[in-house]
């Protein structure tokens, strides 16, 4: 017999399995030794079962089965004061359910719901390619700062905008996402999945921009954002015809060719940084994204290039 007892809330959480693993284990240890608390378990179980039975249930298969299982579990608890099945389930969860990766926790921290964060973080592209891209941007930013203002800016501008579109393409290209075919035939909208991953890439590129701003003088560190958004939109639109990665490679190669050509013809990259050029990139993004949305039906089935 122990001096203290489980309070009503703790007992309810234990019965309804809404307590933590540690809290549940502690409650069970106590129940092993405390007969009055064991007696209270039955009362609490009855009350909880009554709540479950009277709750309004939507007739979806998943929710229905969840309620059925809850009632079954509660019945089991009635038979056995210590719900070994529940303990076993929680133990298995602790062992089998994968812990969120650093990247996934970062996405959750940025406000993405846990389910969405998992769907985004699964993409192979985010497991190394994204990091490589950001490191490349930072390296080129540092190099740009080292080689001087004009040449450095050209160098930085040639690399920074292509990294996001390459990473976006990698996040849903079959070559990089080998599970694409089973993903495709699930009810989850492919458009939503692609846009989630795209937005995650762009959002996570921002810290790189901010850091690179420490190295690059003037507005260059931010001037690549609109070209990047434009190129990402072009890749999204082109991927309704061609492979995303192939589209990204073509767009990136084109951009590199244009930048190097401009660098030889004009000494200063100001023309690229000024408002007309930035507006053109914005228009490119808007037009490409419109094409992407118009052709979004093509995303829901395997395309000929698959």
């Amino acid at each position, binding site marked *: 017999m122990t001096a203290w007892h489980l309070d009503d809330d703790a007992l309810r959480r234990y019965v309804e399995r809404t307590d933590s693993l540690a809290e549940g284990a502690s409650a069970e240890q106590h129940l092993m030794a405390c007969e009055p608390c064991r007696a209270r378990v039955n009362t609490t179980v009855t009350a909880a079962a009554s709540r479950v039975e009277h709750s309004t249930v939507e007739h979806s298969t998943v929710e229905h*089965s969840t309620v059925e*299982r809850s009632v079954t579990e509660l019945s089991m608890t009635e038979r056995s004061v210590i719900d070994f099945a529940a303990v076993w389930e929680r133990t298995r969860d602790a062992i089998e359910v994968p812990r969120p990766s650093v990247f996934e926790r970062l996405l959750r921290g940025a406000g993405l719901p846990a389910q969405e964060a998992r769907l985004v973080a699964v993409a192979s592209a985010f497991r190394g390619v994204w990091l490589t891209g950001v490191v490349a941007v930072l390296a080129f930013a540092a190099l740009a700062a080292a080689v001087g203002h004009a040449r450095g800016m050209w160098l930085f501008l040639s690399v920074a905008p292509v990294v996001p579109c390459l990473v976006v393409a990698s996040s849903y290209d079959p070559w990089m996402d080998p599970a694409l075919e089973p993903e495709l035939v699930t*009810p989850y909208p492919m458009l939503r999945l692609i846009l989630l991953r795209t937005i995650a890439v762009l959002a996570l590129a921002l810290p790189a921009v901010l850091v690179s701003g420490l190295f690059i003088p003037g507005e260059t560190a931010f001037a690549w954002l609109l070209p990047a958004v434009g190129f990402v939109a072009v890749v999204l639109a082109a991927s309704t015809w061609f492979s995303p990665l192939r589209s990204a490679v073509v767009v990136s190669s084109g951009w590199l060719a244009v930048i190097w050509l401009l660098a030889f013809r004009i000494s200063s990259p100001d023309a690229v940084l000024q408002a007309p050029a930035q507006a053109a990139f914005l228009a490119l993004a808007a037009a490409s994204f419109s094409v992407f949305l118009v052709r979004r039906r093509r995303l829901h*089935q395997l395309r000929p290039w698959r």
Partner: protein
Amino acid sequence: MATASISLRDVGRTFGATRALAGVDLDLKPGVTGLLGPNGAGKTTLLRLLATALPPSQGQLSVLGLDPEVPAERTGIRRQLGYLPQEIGFPRGFTAFAFVDYIALLKEWTQPAARHAEVRRVLDLVGLSDLGTKRIRAMSGGQRRRVALAQALLGSPRVLILDEPTTGVDPEQRVTLRTVLAEIARTSIVVLSTHQTEDVAALCERVIVLDRGRVRYDGPVTELTGQAAGRVWLADEPDPAAKVSWRTGTGRYRNVGGRVRDGVEHVEPSLEDAYLLLRGGSPEPETTQEVAS
């Protein structure tokens, strides 16, 4: 709940100038249907059409009374569909549990407790309940195939499309999987393609033989096997007139098709014998263009 059904009317699929399927008419009901055919016969294309991964280029396809060309109805089909593609990769670093859990998320299993229970159930069905925490990259080919199969079984789908489900799976596990699939097929449509005729013979009540994008045979397995009755025999020498002939473990030659001589030892034909006869003994289909699967 109405009986599940799939119907194809004059369905065809082309890839540019290449015709992969032509004029396919089929009605599929609950039960296991086996799909046989050589490489490039159009099996994978047909399964992709049934799984809504590809749209047909021509004809009418209806799955569970729904039209896969209509977005909302396609989503409705996908909610009741399990699909195992011929080739499937896994995200790097994933365990079996993590991968199936990920696909379950995409299949709208949003409640974590229910989802985890379902993941455990399907891993148990394919005999991987003890390997949930093992990284897929460290698994054997057969184990990986079973992980892929597990994701297709999520939610006990009414339509189960399996492209070569038993590739690399050991004989013991194949028998277990047959039991699982037979149970599912009591209420669901199960269509599987395979090169393993013994799987079809053991599991399927109906077999469809595809060749160059066209249906060459569609009917009961027993009927196809029956077509080979009296055309398979053992002899001490290979028969040059036989369609196929090979030396068996006893040292005698198994001859299939061709001219049957007097005094030979007739044997019970297998489905493989019947399939080989069908492939080797029928006129070429009308398809003239090269096809791909």
